């Protein structure tokens, strides 16, 4: 019977999603700001 550590799995997937989506949004926002400045 495998150990029940589902919470750790969910935490890792959520953290990775936050970093990847967050970085995408940060890049898009920085590009938008740079284009507004021009």
């Amino acid at each position, binding site marked *: 019977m*495998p*150990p*029940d*550590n*589902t919470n*750790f*799995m969910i*935490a*890792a*997937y959520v*953290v*990775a*999603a936050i*970093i*990847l*989506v967050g*970085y*995408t949004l940060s*890049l*898009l926002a*920085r*590009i938008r700001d*740079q*284009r507004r*400045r*021009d």
Partner: protein
Amino acid sequence: MTLRESGARIARLGGVVTAVALLGVAAVYLRALKYTPVEATQGAAQKIFYIHVPAAWAGLMAFVVTGLLSILYLWLKDRRIDLAAAASAEVGVAFSFVILTTGPIWGKPIWGTWWTWDARLTSTLFLFLLFVGYIVLRGVLTDPGMRGRFSAVIGIMGMILVPFIHLTVYMFRTLHPAPIVLKPSRPSLPDDMLTTLMMSVAVFSVLYVGFLMLRYALGLLHEAHEEELADAS
């Protein structure tokens, strides 16, 4: 084509590539969580492997690209190469952040500790901090030539660390598992798990390209703005 036009074009294309890659990440999540079997000894936490390993692949690839572009920059002295190297370094730091957060979350239930100062973990943290330093250095140097040269040297040193990090599990006694795919013999993983891992590696590679294009476009747009300010003054 002007720098601004190139930047705008690459930003549009990079946005599309990143959006496609993020949809791919969602598909990997679905496949890994719902359709890939639970490993018998580690349980559900083993599935962290399907994001941790591809993030490590993308992050280390980003740092190798930074190193290669840095060599090219020192040779050709083209500022666009310097901008591309810097873009790849920042993307590598973002992926390293995924490595350094998902790793400890796996380590706690499997090793019983969030962190241990063994060779693989310490050298990965060192590489991450080296490239954070690279980004900080670029922020404080105002002369473009000096910024390009200094950061290129750090970029090359970072690239040299990458194969060392891969080999740490063979060179030192370490808690970190040895490679199960990137090794001389056949991958030691059941087919359905291997398919999920390979799918994730492919998706993270495309995501790296998308991020790189967006960050490079940002660099070009910033460079165009700086050039116009310099011309105006």
